[in-house]
């Protein structure tokens, strides 16, 4: 299950980065870029919170 969350998080992070590059290179429109990045944000937190947000000992 942890691997699943990892994959979701990495896909989310990729969708945070790549759309802006695609927009910069005029491959997609600005509205699409904003949408993909919003989706990427949701995916990142959906995956990263269960994957990385483990309880640790406070200093």
């Amino acid at each position: 299950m942890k691997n699943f969350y990892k994959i979701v998080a990495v896909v989310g992070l990729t969708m945070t980065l790549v759309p802006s590059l695609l927009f910069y290179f005029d491959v997609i429109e600005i509205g699409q870029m904003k949408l993909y990045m919003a989706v990427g944000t949701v995916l990142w937190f959906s995956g990263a919170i269960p994957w990385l947000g483990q309880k640790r000992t406070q200093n």
Partner: protein
Amino acid sequence: MADKSSILKRLDSLYEFDREPVTRNKLQGIGNFLGMYAGEHVAGTEFVIGMLFVAHGVSVRDMFIGGLIGNILAIGSWAFLTAPIAVKVRLSLYWQLKKICGSMLVFIYNIVNALMFCFLAGAMVAVAATAVGIPFGIEMPALSDMLPNSVGWVVTVLGVGTVITAMAILGFDALARFAKVAAPWMFLIFVTAAIAVLPKLGVTPGAGNFWEVARESIWTGVAREGQSQFSFWHVVFFTWLANAAMHLGMSDLTILRYAKKWQYGFSSAVGMFLGHYVAWIASGILYAAANSDAPGVVAYEAIGIAGAICVVIAGWTTANPTLYRAGMALQVASGWSRWKVTLLAGAITTTAAMFPALVMKLLDFVALYGLVLIPMGAVILADFYFIPKLGLQSFYAEKKKIDFNLAAGATWFIMLALALFLNLYFKIELFFLPAPIWILSLGAYLLFSKMYQKNLKLNLT
């Protein structure tokens, strides 16, 4: 308010868990420090600082070269000044200061630190509010606004401050873990948002005109109306001393005492170059392309809801630990329970956040924060390296069982008075004061210690 001895007992009990020096089995690998510095220095403040550099008319050279030099100086301060003491003594800032200065002076230091934390958290609440207010169409403050500019703004800040305070009371630990999760994504948002607005500024693939656009539209070298003109040296000194409290001020002794060797101080480079270089450059690019002075609107205009969410999270995750630390310090003074002091800290923070000055003058506030605390860092360094060489007693308060080391107290208060004098009468700007004040504090502590320790010895014989 409780009496002195109960305050001092509470102060000690707050830090009881790390009273002893860190033992070898508790030391941590470099990965921990790299992650910590990266996460801590890509924060809500980065949105604002990069924007304000543009507003103050820094040039391309100032930003790229001045920023590089300033960050190298900051990293050097951590590595060569803070880390060597941290790995030798292995105590937290609290205990090391207490041994030198005595409980009462440390108590005063804690309270001052708490107030500064409240105002810093307030700036972050305001930053988050600039994003939260977007769907409600509230009138955002402008660069020149020092006072609350609309009822909508006040209500939004009140709402955001209340939620942030409530969540700090209910679950600081969970929020701290959330902040670690958010960190890599936040950094990417800075970078991708900057890439996304480059076409709007006229930078297109293959045109090779980034530097030309940067000179003409972003870091133009001309301050915006109503803003003071910054120079190369403003950027160098601000970048170097933005975290003065942590390196020259020695508060990162608390972190670096877990380092296996002093060279781990260089791990601060990750935070400096990701946060205080790339993120500041990115937010400058964003601001140049924006039609607003409000960070939330700037980010939303660039990349939509992801940008606005980033500003909320950046402000929130920076406000949360600062509220927590402020609460801890106030807890000692009041004896109240944790939730009550966090509520008090939250109230101070939220009230401060209503004044846009806290955001629009963030550079000045950050400089002031470092300046106020930096003399005590000099006291620590002087005590470690030079006091024994002069035949004097280090950890003097502990050795003599005193609550207030007059030499340390005099150093702190007199150096701050000197800083105020230099600022008011010689018009030396805040950004240029911490470095000389730190150096003078070294000398002052040694001089005052020579007088004080001799006098105390005479009085006791």
